[in-house]
């Protein structure tokens, strides 16, 4: 109504006015915070130029010992690569199925008991915070060596990740259809399958595929703690100091992840196209009998896709299945573990470990963000337009991403010895690759219209970048930096498993020596720190974006 409209713009301006000063403060405070932690980190980790120089020499010598890579038995490698895939597939599939009801209960739309909702939210927060490699250490203890523990570890961590994202998807849906079906007297469960599920399906398939991609990466290193997959061979090779063999396996893992990069790009594109509204209007073929839905391309694709997904999941499950003869022993181990959790022990070793993990993660984030930013700027053509350089940088980023950071850490530990320095270097590489990828995407996404206008005024490329691109890039720079440190923290918590500093070492030792009270202490600290950093990041993001 015409009477009410004038009040709107007023409300908007009133809301907007106090914003810029706050945004500006956060824009400076967050980088300053990272910088402060990093200065401390450089001292704590004892990073200095001579260490870097000596380190470079040591790494070069190790790399020499790794050449030429040896591949050993090819059929064994293929079997292990497939096992890696089955672990990821089974874990992701189970997590997806379990996540559906959890996400429904965790989402704001849930109308059931509050207590259920808070319990489910708790489960999601905790499983999200604990990396799959940490779950794997615990599950190997309970279920023994092999892919079952690995798949379970993947599933546990993914439940938190997938359920969180699914709940977000559910909350974004418009309430109209849900209200309409509620009004016909349908139960909550019926309403969920009728209105919420079909509307979320495109978003769910794409987030599950994204998670599957991440999980295949994670599964490649689960073998380092004995939880199956290609990492087992790597562990064996390193353990027996057979560096050429190790190099061969790293190459295989790299190729696997490169192939994955390509496949997931193609699949994401296909899903996005399929999900686009209005692509198909007839969902079934009409037949002479009005109540009999016939087969057309759209129905074949839907049904075929669902059958392939279900078939792949079932097959993967058979490949990672649990050996029932171990049931008794596993039960006993689980009981020991859970009773051993009490009382949790949080001593100085645990606190130092978790502190070191945080320092490593944040320092590496700073390094990664700075180098990643340079790479992104050089490869997007805003400032420098030299196609071969931009191509080379993109290839470099893809290659960096194709080796998991635990493997970088493994190599650095072998070259430089135990300690956080190796972990810091490994994390710096993976943070650089991540940040470069995020920033490149963000810089490419900057709307070119205003830039053209600036160019037309005769501004130089650098001027266009500084006044046209940069201001709009800053929110995503900060958001993605926070996200990078979020990922880095989880990674830095597991690097200790290969001796590269941080809490992972304490965790692994505690499980190996049956000191489960300390295990519980580590898990508690880990969850608290990850959740706290996430909260800080979320708060900071609202200030900037």
């Amino acid at each position, binding site marked *: 109504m015409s009477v009410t409209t004038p009040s709107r713009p007023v409300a908007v301006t009133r809301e907007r006015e106090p914003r810029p000063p706050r945004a500006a403060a956060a824009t400076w405070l967050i980088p300053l915070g990272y910088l402060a932690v990093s200065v401390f980190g450089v001292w704590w980790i004892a990073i200095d130029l001579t260490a870097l120089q000596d380190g470079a020499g040591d790494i070069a010598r190790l790399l020499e010992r790794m050449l030429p890579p040896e591949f050993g038995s090819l059929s064994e490698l293929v079997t292990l690569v497939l096992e890696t895939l089955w672990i990821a597939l089974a874990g992701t599939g189970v997590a997806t199925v379990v996540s559906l009801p959890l996400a429904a209960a965790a989402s704001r739309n849930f109308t059931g008991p509050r207590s259920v909702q808070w319990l489910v939210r708790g489960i999601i927060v905790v499983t999200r915070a604990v990396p799959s490699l940490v779950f794997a250490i615990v599950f190997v203890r309970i279920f023994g060596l092999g892919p079952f523990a690995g798949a379970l570890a993947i599933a546990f961590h993914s439940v938190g990740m997938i359920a969180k994202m699914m709940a977000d998807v559910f909350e974004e849906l418009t309430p109209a259809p849900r209200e309409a079906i509620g009004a016909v007297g*349908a*139960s909550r469960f019926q309403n969920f399958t009728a209105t919420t599920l079909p509307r979320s399906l495109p978003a769910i398939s794409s987030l599950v595929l994204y998670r599957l991609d991440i999980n295949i990466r994670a599964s490649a290193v689960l073998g380092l703690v004995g939880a199956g997959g290609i990492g087992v061979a790597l562990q064996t090779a390193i353990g027996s100091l057979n560096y050429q063999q190790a190099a061969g396996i790293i190459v295989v893992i790299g190729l696997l992840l490169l192939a994955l990069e390509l496949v997931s790009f193609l699949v994401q594109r296909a899903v996005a196209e399929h999900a686009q509204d209005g692509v198909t209007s007839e969902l079934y073929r009409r037949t002479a009998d009005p109540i009999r*839905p016939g087969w057309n391309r759209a129905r074949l694709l839907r049904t075929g896709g669902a059958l392939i997904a279900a078939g792949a999941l079932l097959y993967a499950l058979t490949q990672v299945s649990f050996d029932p003869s171990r049931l008794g022993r596993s039960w006993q181990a689980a009981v020991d573990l859970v009773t051993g959790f009490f009382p949790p022990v949080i001593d100085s070793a645990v606190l130092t470990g978790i502190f070191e993990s945080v320092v490593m993660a944040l320092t590496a984030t700073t390094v990664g963000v700075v180098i990643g930013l340079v790479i992104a700027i050089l490869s997007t053509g805003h400032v420098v337009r030299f196609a071969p350089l931009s191509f080379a940088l993109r290839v470099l980023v893809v290659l960096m991403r194709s080796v998991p950071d635990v493997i970088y850490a493994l190599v650095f530990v072998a070259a430089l010895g135990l300690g956080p320095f190796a972990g810091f270097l490994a994390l710096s590489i993976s943070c650089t690759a991540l940040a470069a990828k995020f920033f490149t995407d963000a810089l490419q996404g900057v709307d070119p219209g205003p830039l053209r206008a600036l160019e037309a005024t005769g501004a130089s490329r650098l001027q266009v970048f500084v006044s046209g691109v940069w201001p709009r890039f800053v929110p995503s720079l900060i958001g993605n930096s926070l996200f990078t440190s979020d990922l880095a923290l989880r990674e830095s918590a597991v690097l200790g498993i290969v001796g590269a500093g941080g809490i992972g070492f304490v965790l692994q030792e505690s499980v190996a020596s049956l000191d489960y009270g300390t295990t519980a202490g580590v898990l508690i600290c880990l969850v608290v720190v990850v959740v706290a950093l996430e909260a800080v990041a979320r708060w900071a993001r609202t200030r900037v974006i």
Partner: protein
Amino acid sequence: MNVPGGDAADVGSRAQASLRLDGVGMSFGAKEVLAGIDLEVSPGQFVALVGPSGAGKSTLLRLLNGSHRPTVGTVSVLGTDPTKCSRRELQRLRTRIGFVFQQFGLVGRLSAMENVLMGALGSLRLPRYGVSSYPQDLRRRAAGNLERVGLIDARFQRCDTLSGGQQQRVAIARTLMQDAEIVLADEPVASLDPSSSLSVLETLRRLSAEDGFTVVCSLHQVDLALAISDRIVAVRDGSLVLDTATSQTNESQIRSIYQRNGPAT
């Protein structure tokens, strides 16, 4: 205030009212949205609820299907007080009340047939997914209902590829699956262009006459209300300001209630 409109004979012939409100008031926090509402609607009547935006029409309709509870007064729908129902009982009561929304409330990615079938969920126990998961007899009824709203050929079409008027017809066919005794419609044609507005309302009117269900339909276009209803109830600022048989009123009388100092009948 007038005695409830409609033929006296009709009121007399059917013992029980479809719905009645006695002294109903409703507040959201400190904000009073409805006050002193008395309303009785007899079976088969087509009532148009008119009034300016913010008058309380939607709130009134949501009271009738138990989505809101009144702050004071009593509500009786099909002889039941929805505020006294347990969740299951309310679910059962709602299977007998159709509701048509301005925004249709369809699942755009699914076929018209499946959206219509959802209207029968209240009579089924398990959840369903996909047209083939519904029993044959329901599918046959769904096809029949699509036929009645003129959309049988679009049965397997994605709902979001249909026009607004067609989508609202699908939503109406969905309420037909309930075999509802009452259909409540909240601004069902507010998002449609004038010609499809009239034809959607005419369809609703025809179906109501054929099946004998009661309709309470909120509208903000007075001309449509006059063209389609048996009885017009006007709301302003949360109170009933006019309640009359459609044949006994005209456009200018109703228009005047939109204005502050208009005659409160």
